[in-house]
């Protein structure tokens, strides 16, 4: 008897349930559509890549064209070096800009910078390559070198700066304003509590953004074509053309022989594993260390 006021005509109830089930089905379908290509790529790479993988692949440099064997040691090293340079340049610039945009929102300069960042994020990466080619490679700006690992690192930095700016800004916006008020009420100047309270409480989020940037830098190909150029030999000198995994995937994949396809798959697999590894390690480290908001 006490349920009478709660009960709804059974037709209405059935309709509600039907709509609910239908919407749920739609969501599941959309998720499947989104995830399928990802799983397909990963699965295919796994199958194709692992088949050709062996220790030699990591320890050897590419074999002369047409010969069997050879590895991507120089590409792994090159990718690590150039991504490292990119982070060295982009992290200070990107994170500080993100802090500025988030914490000084009303500043007229912030509007201009935010717009510029959005534009930069939308520039095709090959254009960034041309840009760096024009300002660094052509004038031999870096120690008289033309194509160089340094130029490649700069190109990658330009590409990931907008990513770092955006993620940093968005993460900082999630920090509740009440924490800023608390610090201000203690008589701490704004620049000070921004760096000592606001940024540390968003630290793991900013670190995740940096990892996103790193993953992006490691995977970029087009901007390296015109800057690092690629190199068939082992090289760690910044003023020499430098190999990169992504460039090797590109050259091997379009090479007109079976061996090339084999190497391309294996290199792609290594690249993805590298990115995955960096992601997992950083996530683990920062999860343990940071106090959540």
């Amino acid at each position: 008897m006490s349920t009478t006021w709660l009960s709804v005509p059974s037709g209405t109830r059935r309709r509600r349930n039907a709509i609910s089930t239908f919407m749920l089905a739609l969501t599941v379908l959309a998720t499947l559509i989104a995830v399928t290509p990802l799983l397909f790529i990963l699965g295919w790479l796994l199958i194709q890549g692992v088949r050709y993988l062996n220790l030699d692949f990591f320890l050897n440099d590419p074999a002369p064209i047409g010969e069997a064997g050879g590895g991507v040691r120089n590409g792994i090293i090159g990718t690590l070096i150039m991504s490292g340079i990119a982070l060295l340049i982009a992290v200070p610039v990107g994170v500080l800009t993100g802090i500025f945009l988030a914490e000084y929102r009303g500043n007229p300069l912030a509007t201009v910078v935010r717009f510029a960042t959005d534009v930069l994020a939308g520039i095709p990466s090959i254009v960034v390559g041309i840009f760096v080619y024009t300002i660094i490679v052509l004038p031999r700006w870096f120690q008289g070198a033309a194509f160089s690992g340094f130029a490649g690192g700069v190109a990658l930095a330009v590409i990931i700066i907008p990513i770092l700016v955006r993620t940093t800004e968005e993460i900082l916006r999630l920090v509740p304003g009440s924490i800023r008020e608390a610090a201000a009420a203690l008589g701490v100047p704004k620049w000070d509590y921004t760096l000592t309270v606001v940024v540390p409480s968003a630290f793991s989020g900013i670190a995740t953004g940096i990892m996103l940037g790193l993953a992006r830098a490691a995977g970029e190909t087009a901007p390296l074509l015109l800057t690092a150029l690629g190199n068939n030999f082992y090289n760690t000198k910044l003023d020499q053309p430098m190999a990169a995994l992504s460039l090797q995937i590109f050259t091997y994949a379009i090479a007109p022989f079976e061996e090339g396809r084999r190497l391309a798959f294996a290199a792609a697999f290594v690249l993805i594993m590298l990115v995955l590894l960096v992601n997992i390690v950083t996530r683990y480290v920062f999860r343990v260390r940071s106090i959540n908001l």
Partner: protein
Amino acid sequence: MELELTYDRVQESTQAAVGDRTARCNGHIHVRDMHFYYGAFQALRGITLDFAPGAITAIIGPSGCGKSTLLRTLNRMTDMQPNTRVEGMITLDGSDLYARSVDVVDVRRRIGMVFQRPNPFPKSIYENIAYGLRRKGVARRDLDGHVEQALRKAGLWNEVSNRLQTSGLALSGGQQQRLCIARALAMNPAVLLMDEPCSALDPIATLKIEELMRELRREITIITVTHSMQQAGRVSDTTVFMLMDVNGRAGMVVETGPTNDLFTAPRDQRTEDYISGRFG
């Protein structure tokens, strides 16, 4: 004319009282003919009040009448909001808080604030207290002592002394609020502003905070906003009743006086209506 003369005199003494970082002031706040604007909207009109040292003043009034705004003008938290404007004068021990020569940092160190929702930093309990001390330049070896003293004053020491390194966010709401009070007290302010400090707390936590306020009263001027008239009656020595202007909606002070008098024999009809529940 007279006002201007006073203003000059006040500016001279400003450096002495507010600028000197070591001098402990009495905590006497004086508000005279203060008007406050959010852009074009006037939120406070003609506020004249005296907050005496060693007493607890409660500010009561209906929602939106400007209680929080008034409180925030007292330690210049309103500086953080763009397009706000203060007219008139607010002094601490005779020094104009809004004088050009005054650094807002010094104002806030002398006039601490506790907010409606507990807002500890996402740091350890210890670090919540030590943070402000470090910014203030307290030596590392003195920190432990100061932290303990502040936590004791806030009546929290016994509950947290064995877990100072755990997150301040892991405490209960009431404990978090007392942590925030300890954080403010650690800076050794002369005045403590509290904006509905108990509104997010249960009755027992509320009683603890009220007890704490009464204990602190001797050494510090306390100004608290509250929606609870029982609370105003329990803790405060003086009560300020505010209301919105009928036209223009600016907040103003209707009546102020010793809490007992104001509750038992209000002079203004509107005060009587409000405390007897016939209003807002």
